[in-house]
């Protein structure tokens, strides 16, 4: 591709829902969802640790399923509902019970993998409110944590699962 090539022909308008708000933008077709969230929307809670679907720090929830946003093109997300870590707290800024449990159980150290880790686990709790420890381990097998917080992540998740089930019953 010659350097002078005009890239505007590769642009496309996209519309999608991010954290409950509809978003429309004109973007470079080659842009990944992670780049779109970070660079265009400024949602830098989505981290990019490898940019090739290995580390999981870019995990977001797309139509209820966890995806590596570095391996999804922004144009593939047209019409989809995206949940990023910024959308997990409610409007008053109240933390999700899993976020609270992460803090209480010290399920993070440097915190870089944490947003992706939490979103993978949120997706797990949605599809399986009563996970076993093995289910939790499997759910985050694609999320690397080099600080080695796994055992506290297990604790935080299982505790949240119990709490959410109790809250459900209480309703």
């Amino acid at each position, binding site marked *: 591709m010659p*350097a*002078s090539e005009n*890239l505007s022909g590769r642009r496309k308008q996209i519309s999608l829902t991010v954290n409950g708000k509809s978003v429309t933008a004109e973007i*470079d077709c080659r842009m990944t969802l992670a780049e779109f969230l*970070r660079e265009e929307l*400024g*949602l*830098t*809670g*989505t*981290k*990019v*640790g*490898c*940019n*090739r679907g*290995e*580390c999981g*720090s870019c995990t977001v929830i797309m139509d209820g399923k966890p995806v590596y946003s570095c391996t999804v093109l922004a144009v593939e997300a047209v019409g989809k509902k995206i949940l*990023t*870590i*910024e959308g*997990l*707290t409610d409007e008053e800024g109240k*933390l999700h019970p899993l*976020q609270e449990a*992460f*803090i*209480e159980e*010290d399920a*993070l*150290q*440097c*915190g*870089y*993998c*944490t*947003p992706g880790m*939490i979103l993978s686990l949120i997706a797990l709790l949605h599809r399986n409110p009563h996970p076993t420890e093995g289910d*939790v*381990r*499997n759910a*985050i*097998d*694609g*999320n*690397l*944590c*080099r*600080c*080695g*917080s*796994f*055992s*506290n*992540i*297990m604790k935080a998740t299982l505790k949240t699962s119990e709490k959410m089930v109790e809250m459900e019953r209480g309703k």
Partner: protein
Amino acid sequence: MAESKLLVQGTPPPPLERELTVVGRPFNRRGAVERVTGQAKYSGDIRLPGMLYGMILRCPHPRARIVRIDTGQAQALPGVKAVLSKENTKGWRTQWYKVPQLAFPECITHEGQEVAAVAAEDITIAQRALELIDVEYEILTPMLDVEETMKNPPLPLVADEEYPGREIYDRKPYVIKRGDIQKGLAEADVVVEETYTTQASFHGTIQTRACVANWDGETLTVCDAIQGVWNSKEALGISLGIPPEKVRVVVKYLGGGFGSKAWSQRISFYAAKLSMVTGRPVRIERSRAEEFLAHPRRWDCKMYIQMGAKREGTLTAIYERALVNVGAAGLETNYYAMQIIWHTANLHACPNVYLEQIGVFTNLQINGPTRSPLNMPGIFALESHMDKMAEAIGMDPLEFRLKNCRDYAIVGSDAGEVPDATVIESEEEIPYSSKNLDECMRLATRAIGWEKRKSYRAARGGAKRRGIGMASYLTFQGVGLIPYTAYADVEIKHDGTITLFIGVVDIGGGQATIFPMIAAEELGVNPEDMTVVLGDTRDTRYGPSCQVSRVTAELGPAVLQAAAEARKRLFEVAAPILGARPEELQSKYGQVYVKSNPWRSVPLKTVCDKIDPEVPIRGGGARAPNPATPTFSIFGAQAVEVEVDIETGQVDILRIAAAHDFGRAINPKLCISQVQGGIEFGVGFALSEEGLYDPNTGKLLNKNFHQYKIPTALDMPQIDVFLVEAEDPYFAYSAKGAGENTNAPTPAAIRNAIYNATGIWFNDLPTTPDKIIGAIQNIKKGG
């Protein structure tokens, strides 16, 4: 009253003389809300107005000479604002690891070395610009394997080929000796020899290194991903030819360090230079592949050990020859000429030792601090050998270690510094400030169910075999050498705000949490009443880089002293309110009270009302350097239970028990997290992580997380952590420091457990399934 031994300059603060209300409690981590909500801004998340995007062109060969470089087309590309290469930066040297090196040399000494840097309006243009740079290389034969390299004389250097540190370290034995090694070997009932190899390994921080540099014509501000703001400030100032006081370094959040970010690195220097050339902020962020290529990583090592012991279990001799692949640079702070042998010398008592460590320069990547850089390889070899020795004399490995446990070191200086002499002859016995290694060993083995070893051994058979193993370790703590004295400052204002200023970074170890806890304890307030300013050279005095588990050891006493001084002034203000003399006062939970009558009290906020609004109360602290004696070390032992599938070669770690002597934990919750994190590193080093090089070209083959396998949630077992706590008067609340080195004993403990399960000694890390299957097939063949 005993004289205070706290390591501070000037008068040590008086003892607290009340029960602790903050220190030792499991408070939640500071900055956690920002991290779990995605609000925490790491360096790569920062975008400044007018910011340019920088990228680096890296040499694809381990050793080459640039015959010709043409950046003309790249410079002409619309959107490109600057291109740096050797052509327009002649003579520019950057200060990396305290040694000046050519920023863009003509001769490349390792794969991934920087050839050019560009800054452009967006990342796509920057990438395209790199593609347009035309470089012609003359590919030279690289030095790769240590033993092969040593067969030939050192290379004659071509052009400006540089191997910083080569003249100091290359092929030179550094020796620690004691007693008479020949006599010790002759006295032994049994002598056991073995060779161990360990692999090149990488930090694998999940955040890749990123920095944003902004030169405004007066001041250079660098938001960086580094473990030390102050050492980086110095390095940036020297590298860019500006006074350090015009450099501000900021790190608010750091996505993992483990040594990889010990200093400002070359991308910070290039980003700063590009900002100075363009007059605009520049961000450079490395890709994962660059991270593997351009990071100083852990050396591959080969260690030969010959050990002699009496049948009753007394060690009589240890001979060690350790070869270390230094890579292309071995500088004051990224190669440790005696680190392996320091640990061998000091862990177990032995009257006769001859230990030599030889570093060899090659064309592999630069090496550098990596969680227990040479400690982990060294401890792996030694603690593996201890088990083999125990077996040879028919003794229980725990009993053998306990029998040779002692209360003194023979080499007290920090082996991480440049040694004064190449040979240390030591007949000394330097006491430790505190040591509870025997207790750690007993606790870890009891927790794992040590007695099961015998039944596991007897039950060897079937496809899945279980085993238990252990290992111990020690690590040197703190330095505090002038001019690198750690300082801390506390300020109490009229409006009641209390702020701690410390020049360190919270790298995930909880530094932002534990230092305010120390200050809060001294002041008698709740930790949440304290604000902490850290990770910014503008607002703080010198603090050490967060490496070698040193900040708690080095900064803790300074923080305690600063807070105690502020408390003294605060009591002077409170005394008239309470109608008592300052020395009669005490404080806790945010109340100042009279010791003899705690009901006579006043809230600290009320006392603050009396502080002059123009003149806040200030307290300062400064750490004194480590004395020649005693020696400061942390200790620990880990015991592991594994299940080995001899058909697939798979090793499952079922459980790990870890007992550590860190003195006392300021915050046990965070301290335990550190132990678990270290163990993850140890598990990866033991079983799966390995940098693979093409033996012909010397190129790194696995520059990604798919092929460089760090442990995942499925690989990590249940870990039971025990903190063996005891007094150590030299440190703040006896906190000697913790964290980095908790990986050091893990690989040997796993390896010894695999032996218990299979009856096979594995001496070459990592112990991958193919090695296990190969060894078992060998036995079946009668090999």
